């Protein structure tokens, strides 16, 4: 039986494109329309790959063996209650309903709670806490923006439909005409040959192929003078996005902060005492500042190039400060290019329950927040926690080695749909449904608009949703805690913590035994 389901939401990146058309046959997705390459890889192929986990596993004698769900839940709850200071990490590829239960679990455990935001756009959130943020929903940019700046990000690769759905290649109410032609031109070229090759050829006109390292076009940037929407890219290297842009500025690595500073001065009509900033001549920056000030509505999108290079949240802070300054002259907005499809949701859900978006600690009975103190990487780097639960994330592939090594000294529980790197390393491994394919829920787009994810196919038999797993762990933790209190009360044992710590299973000892 074949059915076609419309308005399906893609669960890859923060764009949350919700116009997918999915064809389902015999409880299997066989075809998809409108999605990008990454989306197709997941929704048509990836979700049903052989790498799927179908049963809970527990590591016994160094090997992962299948167990019942009840056993795995109990084992996980026991590990978490025995630990003095567990860390719950991940959450960003789960629906907000799951994240919601996650906060309750962390509160019950008195543990640390962090989401993937801390290794992607955590700094953006921190910058917001320092100076706020002038931003807008993506449609506002689509309707109004005549200047679009992508700074240190590469949507072509990381958010493939961002340009086409929300910015330069869309039709808005107040911004149209010019661009349709441009897109059609590109499409015509793309149909003849591969897109990449075609775009490259169209760009050759503007840039000489053998440029020096400072990497700036010698000719004045004629495309900046063009009518209609303009797209400018700032990056350390020329990416695919840079190739479709009207103007590309190559900056030296780790010098974005200085350039933002310089642009702020120029926007405020101040003179600089230097000739080049971050490898870019001040004269070029002046022209860019002019274009910014003369825009009707400008938008800056920034990516991990700012949050992961030196300066981190300070880079973002200055990007926001620049936007703020520009608002005195025209209208400007700035927005982070959030990665995982529901990382914004994790921030949102955590914030309404605790007041803080990530890097949380419940050890004092109330929420505490401090990136650098309670962020996953810092806790792991210092070896501050003694058990970890990872849910819907793959720190196995995305954490630096040193942090992982410390994580693996203690028991590790994982909740993921497939055998990704962290599942392979887990001690208690749960299978779970693919959120947005086999499980409905809510996700927040990068501009914090909530969108309902659809359930398109049934999950394999016996594979629970992550919400159910977390909820059951929470219930089991409460049962174990209640029992412990009861026994302690019966023994009249005052120093229950000491007993707990003796009972605590140290994995290193286990290892030696085997």
């Amino acid at each position: 039986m074949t059915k076609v389901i419309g308005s399906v939401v893609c669960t890859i990146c923060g764009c949350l494109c919700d116009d997918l058309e999915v064809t389902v046959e015999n409880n299997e997705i066989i075809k998809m329309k409108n999605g990008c390459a990454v989306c197709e890889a997941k929704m048509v192929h990836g979700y049903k790959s052989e790498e799927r986990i179908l049963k809970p596993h527990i590591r016994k004698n160094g090997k992962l063996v299948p167990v019942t769900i009840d056993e795995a839940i109990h084992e996980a709850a026991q590990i978490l209650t025995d630990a003095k200071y567990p860390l719950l990490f991940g959450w960003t590829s789960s629906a907000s309903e799951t994240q919601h239960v996650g906060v309750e679990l962390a509160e019950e455990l008195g543990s640390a709670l962090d989401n993937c935001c801390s290794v992607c756009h955590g700094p953006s959130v921190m910058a917001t806490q320092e100076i706020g943020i002038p931003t807008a929903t993506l449609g506002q940019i689509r309707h109004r923006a005549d200047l679009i700046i992508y700074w240190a990000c590469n949507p072509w690769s990381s958010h493939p439909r961002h340009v086409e759905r929300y910015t330069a290649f869309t039709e808005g109410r107040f911004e149209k005409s010019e661009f349709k032609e441009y897109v059609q031109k590109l499409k015509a070229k793309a149909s003849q040959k591969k897109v990449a090759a075609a775009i490259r050829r169209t760009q050759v006109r503007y840039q000489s192929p053998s440029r020096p390292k400072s990497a700036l076009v010698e000719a004045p940037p004629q495309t900046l003078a063009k009518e209609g929407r303009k797209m400018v890219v700032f990056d350390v290297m020329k990416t695919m996005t840079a190739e479709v842009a009207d103007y590309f500025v190559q900056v030296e690595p780790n010098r974005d902060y200085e350039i933002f500073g310089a642009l702020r001065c120029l926007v405020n009509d101040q003179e600089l005492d230097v000739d080049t900033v971050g490898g870019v001549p001040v004269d070029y920056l002046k022209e860019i500042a002019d274009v910014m000030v003369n825009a009707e509505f400008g938008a800056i999108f920034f990516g991990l190039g700012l949050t992961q290079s030196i300066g981190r949240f300070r880079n973002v802070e200055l990007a926001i400060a620049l936007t703020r300054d520009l608002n005195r002259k025209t209208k400007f907005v700035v927005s982070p290019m959030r990665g995982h499809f529901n990382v914004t949701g994790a921030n949102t859900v955590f914030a309404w329950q605790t007041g803080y978006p990530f890097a949380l600690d419940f050890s004092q009975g109330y929420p505490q927040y401090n990136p650098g103190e309670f962020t996953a990487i810092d806790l792991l780097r210092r070896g501050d926690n003694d058990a970890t639960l990872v849910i819907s994330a793959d720190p196995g592939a995305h954490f630096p080695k040193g942090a992982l090594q410390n994580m693996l000294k203690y028991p590790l529980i994982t909740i993921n749909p497939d055998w990704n790197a962290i599942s392979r390393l887990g001690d208690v491994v749960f299978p779970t449904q693919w959120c947005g394919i086999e499980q409905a829920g809510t996700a927040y787009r990068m501009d914090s608009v909530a969108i309902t994810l659809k359930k398109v196919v049934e999950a394999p038999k016996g594979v629970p949703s992550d919400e159910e797993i977390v909820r059951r762990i929470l219930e089991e933790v409460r049962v174990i805690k209640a029992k412990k209190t009861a026994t302690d009360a019966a023994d009249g044992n005052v120093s229950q913590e000491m007993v707990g710590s003796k009972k605590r299973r140290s994995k290193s000892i286990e290892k030696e035994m085997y």
Partner: protein
Amino acid sequence: MVEQKLSVTLITGRTIDQGVGKELGKGSSEYFDSVAVCFLDPVDIKKLGLKNGANVQVTSPYGSVVVKVKKYTHGTMSGMVFMPCGLWANVICGTDTDSIGMPTFRGFTVEVEPAPDKPVLTLDELLKQEFGK
């Protein structure tokens, strides 16, 4: 002149192939092909006397990993090496966060040298080597 080693700035980031590979599965060949690589400027590849697709060893203060080298064709990036996000890149990333939770993923100096005799490890081999699991 062929050089033995090249000191370059490491940039990590997303590529569309890495995105596709990741969604197809971390154990898939697409993932391996798209992530266990590094991109260098053709000029730099020449400097090392290498061919596209040769094995190179990338070493940072935090670790060292063998990957395949590829030419970066979109524009000049001499003095930089680009690695797609993933386990191979993270083996050489540091845990220093400047106290804000974000580790050192990019923008630091690494050394790239030819490694014709060393194999590029698969995901499982790499996990075994680094974490013993």
